[in-house]
């Protein structure tokens, strides 16, 4: 893996974390209203997957998508401005936290109806097939979404027609207050996918390198015409379901245990590791970890100072985003009507 990619992974995760914590603050201040679902703890999934995509790939996401949009390269300013409901936001202030869209970046939206990403994403994939292009579609969903009928229906069609789509289940073990063992008869999501003739695997969603590698392999395979893939990423959200939820249904020991494997700290720790020399490594052989270590070594690792610099860069970006959002104009009623009729062109209806 390129040193550049490693840095990007780290930076995107940091940005997502800092962005979300700031969003929580702005929510408390009343600058952001409505439902706000935050991503801390799950950054390795979104960042690992989306950095593996090319600009020609498509992304379909849920209401927990700020980190996804940021990883896709949407400027923090536009993401924050959307949270503030401003005209400069990704969706012109019409969508808010749960409905971020960026057509140019093929960020096909955040959807707030659980399970809705599946049919929409297979539709995008179907369109890719019709156009016969080497493009892939990424479809995010939570563990709770797996029990929605649309998951089943859509995966069946994706499997049946071998659509160019990568399904990514962000399994954080909870659907709001309901733990996966209490909502799924078979809690191993990737096993359920066997019903659809879709290759599926489970990935450690706290490890951004593993997620990135799996997504990259899957997307390459898809773009080469291999069709539908599924990865289940086991992860954890550190906060409640949304700002309206204190998360009191989770044992404190569980939250603590997952905080100990914070994907950000792990990535930093990994990158900072003093690696063995190449000859030392050769002696160890090519076991899994060795392989990765060797790879990382050959690319070099980050210095402590670089991490500090990244932290500052990210903090600045978020501060700037908030300032931008605060400065931005509110959309008007005219804007709203214009958005509703945006596809009417000069069509005469009556």
């Amino acid at each position, binding site marked *: 893996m390129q040193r550049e990619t490693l840095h990007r992974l780290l930076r995107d995760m940091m940005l997502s974390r800092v962005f979300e914590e700031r969003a929580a603050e702005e929510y408390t201040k009343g600058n952001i209203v409505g439902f706000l679902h935050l991503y801390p703890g799950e950054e390795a999934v979104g960042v690992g997957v989306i950095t593996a995509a090319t600009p020609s790939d*498509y992304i*379909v996401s849920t209401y927990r998508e700020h980190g996804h949009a940021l990883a896709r390269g949407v400027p923090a300013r536009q993401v924050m401005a959307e949270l503030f409901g401003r005209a400069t*936001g*990704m*969706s*012109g*202030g*019409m*969508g808010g936290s749960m*409905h971020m*869209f*960026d*057509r140019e970046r093929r960020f*096909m*939206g955040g*959807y707030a*109806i659980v399970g*809705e990403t*599946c*049919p*929409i*994403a*297979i*539709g*995008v*994939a*179907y*369109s*890719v*097939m*019709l*156009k016969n292009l080497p493009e892939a579609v990424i479809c995010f969903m939570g563990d709770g979404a797996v029990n929605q*009928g*649309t998951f089943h*229906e*859509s995966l*069946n*069609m994706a499997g*049946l027609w071998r659509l160019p789509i990568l399904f990514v289940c962000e399994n954080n073990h909870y659907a709001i207050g309901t733990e996966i063992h209490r909502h799924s008869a078979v809690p191993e999501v990737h096993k359920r996918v066997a019903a659809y003739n879709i290759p599926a695997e489970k990935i450690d969603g706290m490890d951004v390198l593993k997620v990135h590698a799996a997504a990259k392999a899957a997307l390459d395979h898809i773009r080469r015409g291999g069709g539908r893939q599924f990865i289940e990423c086991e992860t954890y959200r550190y906060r409640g379901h949304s700002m309206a939820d204190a998360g009191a249904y989770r044992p404190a020991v569980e939250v603590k245990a997952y905080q100990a494997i914070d994907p950000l700290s792990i990535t930093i720790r990994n990158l900072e590791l003093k690696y063995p020399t190449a000859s030392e490594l050769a002696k160890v052989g090519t076991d899994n970890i060795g392989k990765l270590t060797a790879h990382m070594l050959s690319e070099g690792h980050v210095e402590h100072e670089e991490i500090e610099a990244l932290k500052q860069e990210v903090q600045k970006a978020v501060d700037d985003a908030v300032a931008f959002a605060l400065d931005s104009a509110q959309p008007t009623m005219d804007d*709203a009507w*214009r*958005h*509703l009729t*945006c*596809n*009417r*062109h000069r*069509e*005469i*209806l*009556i």
Partner: protein
Amino acid sequence: MSQELLYWQALNQAMDAEMEADESVFTLGEDVGLYGGSYRVTEGLYAKYGEWRVRDTPISENSFTGLGVGAAIAGSRPVVEIMTINFALLALDSIVNAAAKIPFMSGGQFPMPLVVRVPTGVARQLAAQHAQRFESMFMNVPGLRVAVPATPQDAYWQLRQAVASDEPIVLLEHELLYFSKGEVDTLADPPPMHRAAVRRAGRDLTIVSYSRMAMLALEAANTLAKEGIEAEVIDLRSLSPIDFDTCAASVDRTHRLLIVEEDGKFGGVGGEIAASLGERCFFSLDAPVRRVAGLDLPIAYNGAIEAASIPRVPDIVEAARALHKSAQQ
């Protein structure tokens, strides 16, 4: 070039023309391909355009309609067939929460050239789960359009216009109209998609109707004419938007309004029409607006009860007569 066609044939030709003209147009639904469509609308297209553009789907209404939504925002032009309106309830999430909302909630970024074709209405003894109408459910959804062609010509025109439009449109096709016959001119310029048609001019009262009931209203008007009552018959052609201008102009002349609809009266389409025109034409109305509508009863399997549950020509005639009389007092 005018030919006599059945309603389903007109739709079939419209589909063919659009698919031929634009590669991004495709259709999908249960048995639309190999089988040729339950009402033959897609007949012949599978052989001609192949399985990717004429796609047989599993029985998964919400997801294959949602597939259409996704394809539409990615630049394709899907025509989804839901086998009947009764199953469209399963797909409302995709139609209402997704298709109708995405252009707006994305801040105007995405087109939504989605057409959802749906056979509907009370046919022949299909019973409660297969004889629903639900038109009004689609009206209270900003961002969605609803067309209700009653003639082969309109079926041809409106399907083509729907496919060409970048807004999401539900096309409601009455099951008993598929085998009705009419002249279809494929070259003539169509009227705007949502403009109402005055099917018959008259001075004594205005009958506003749509889809199959508009045809029954015409029959009723002919009977009434023999009694010297001249009814103007307006076929709405569209339920969202509704061409209230055409209706109001008529009511302002005739001073009486009768609405004929097949759906149940309570909470049905007629309520909106009566409310809007009742407000607009308040001072020109000589009598209360009347609605002849389906009974607020599920449709029974039994044939006689079924027939009595929706308006028949004599029901319309009688209501028009009563309205005409009351207005003269």
